[in-house]
């Protein structure tokens, strides 16, 4: 009887830890106020997307085709894309309009905060990327390189809504409103 109780207790503890582990990755981004980012993007969406003169080209299209198998994939993809935007898109884009520039800046700051939160979660557990995820990241970078830098930057900014939708779908972020 006691042995059964002990074994059951151990099993429950393991399960709990596993669930915590999964939730932990997702919880890393829950605290981020996604609504603020989305609201900011909606205000500049029309202006930015209007500048996109190449509708038949997409940069983040492969993101839709990516099959998420493990929670680690979500962690890897999120980390890679955040790095892409912060390291390449926001730096390459030059916005003349101050209002739009302000909004883009707020979005960039939110992305930096998200990167920091995700790095802390990743330090506790290793975030190994699968090959498929690595391939998807490389395609995005290739698409970005095919276009002119300004056009690519504008187009990438215009596709922010795709990235934000993907985050909402995969991280199950709760609204902080």
């Amino acid at each position: 009887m006691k042995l059964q109780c002990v074994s059951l207790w151990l099993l429950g503890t393991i399960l709990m830890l596993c669930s915590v582990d999964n939730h932990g990755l997702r919880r890393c981004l829950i605290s981020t106020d996604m609504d603020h980012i989305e609201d900011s993007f909606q205000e500049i969406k029309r202006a930015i997307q209007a500048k996109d003169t190449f509708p038949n080209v997409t940069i983040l299209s492969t993101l839709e085709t990516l099959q998420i198998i493990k929670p680690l994939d979500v962690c890897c993809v999120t980390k890679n894309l955040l790095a892409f935007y912060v390291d390449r898109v926001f730096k390459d884009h030059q916005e003349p309009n101050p209002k739009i520039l302000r909004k883009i800046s707020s979005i960039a700051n939110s992305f930096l905060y998200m990167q920091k939160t995700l790095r802390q979660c990743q330090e506790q557990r290793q975030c190994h990327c699968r090959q498929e995820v690595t391939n998807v990241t490389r395609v995005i970078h290739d698409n970005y390189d095919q276009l002119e830098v300004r056009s690519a930057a504008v187009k990438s900014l215009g596709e922010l809504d795709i990235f934000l939708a993907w985050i909402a779908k995969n991280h199950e972020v709760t609204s902080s409103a």
Partner: protein
Amino acid sequence: MLPRLVVLLAAFLSRRLGSDAHGTELPSPPSVWFEAEFFHHILHWTPIPNQSESTCYEVALLRYGTGRWNSISNCSQALSYDLTAVTLDLYHSNGYRARVRAVDGSRHSNWTVTNTRFSLDEVTLTVGSVKLEIHNGFILGKIQPPRPKMAPANDTYESIFSHFREYEIAIRKVPGNFTFTHKKVKHENFSLLTSGEVGEFCVQVKPSVTSRTNKGMWSKEECVSLTRQYFTVTNVIIFFAFVLLLSGALAYCLALQLYVRRRKKLPRVLLFKKPNAFIFISQRPSPETQDTIHPLDEEAFLKVSPELRNSDLHGSTDSGFGSTKPSLQTEEPQFLLPDPHPQADRTLGNGEPPELGNSCSSGSSNSTDSGICLQEPSLSPSTGPTWEQQVGSDSRGQDDSGIGLVQNSEGQAGDTQGGSALGHDSAPEPEVPAEQDPTAVVFRGYLRQTRCAEEKATKTGCLEEELPLTGGLGPKFRGCLDDEAGLHPSALAKGYLKQDPLEMTLASSGAPTEQWNQPTEEWSLLALSSCSDLGTSDWSFAHDLAPLGCVAAPDGLLGSFNSDLVTLPLISSLHSSDSS
């Protein structure tokens, strides 16, 4: 070589110029935009200036990420076009881009592309329908999401916007058009508390998704009127409970009235007719048992006798009895009425007429009504002796006198045994005493008769007193026995008849002792005879006669009479035994 190149270049340039000229002629639509709801994607554009009748618009669609523009409509006169059918996977893709250009004949304008990538963010959220119900003072609302026909089976509003759906509700009471009450609910079912208000309420709903920036659109106004509910479940239950209680109380009262407090009726068997002499006599108390016999004057009797002789006592059985025969008449009342003045009878022996005449309503013995008349003192002494005389004279040779009288009295007095007994009583009484003491004894017996009718109850005492056989008490005893014997006319008749030989023997004896014995024997016989008839009567005498040995039947008594001589000693023995 060189001229060919120049010619080709000129043709090419001219062609290009021509095309440019054509393209520049028509202006392109100023703006193109999408107005989309859930699976209802409409592309709108503004017309070109200077639009002619032949101007139409060409629409093309591009799926974001693919490189090809698909032409949807070559020539559209309207300023909008429904692209729902070609954008069904809008909710699962990165979006679409659309472009429109004006076409006029062979001329085309430049393309005008939508500013933004048409994606899920641009879909305006709407509500399919709102249903309101009233339940116990609450307004229950149910919001139905949009269910467009073109939507694929597995693309529902709830599946696409799976989380964070919210609805804003605006409530207003009909009179006030601008006073709204807002409320946010997070589910499709909501309830509103009206707090007892009555009237018409109108509700509008605006959907939203908190995790998205999609805009929402207010729904159509749904109104519901709230009225006072009188037929609620609780009210109906209370009403029916009250009705049940009332009916139960009514049923209880009715049952009480019908079955508990019902006036109990006596069974018909136990019902009695109007009280008659029989009952009266039986009910009479016995304080008047003390009857004192007073000797009467013979003179008084003699005066009255002729009157009686002339009367039709012998054979008269009709009502004429009451007309001229006061004595006979009195018999009837004897049976029927109690004796209000028993003392009067007692005093009759003294020859003093009791002052009972006032008791009679008629005031005369001729009256045939109840026994009040019997008590007339004037008549009693007169009738007594006369009666006796007649009886005495007729008793020996005629059986009518006493019998007839008795019969008459019977007929007129009723069918009570008491009445007949009285008649009988009257008959033998004069006989026996007539033999021995025609005047005194008979008279007394007659008097006794009058009283007996009234004092039937007292006869018990009489019997008891006269049981001891003594000379002094003889008359008393006799009188009592006579009374008893008088109860049964038939027996008396028989006894009367039978008494003749006895009387003869008795008369011949002439000895007082013998007289004493014989009358006692006769009386005992009479008593015996009468006893048979007394079988069913409720006279107390029956009870008293029992010790005298009243058990034999009338026939038996007759036989006993026949063999009086033989049975005399027995009778006497019986009598003596009883007396002792």
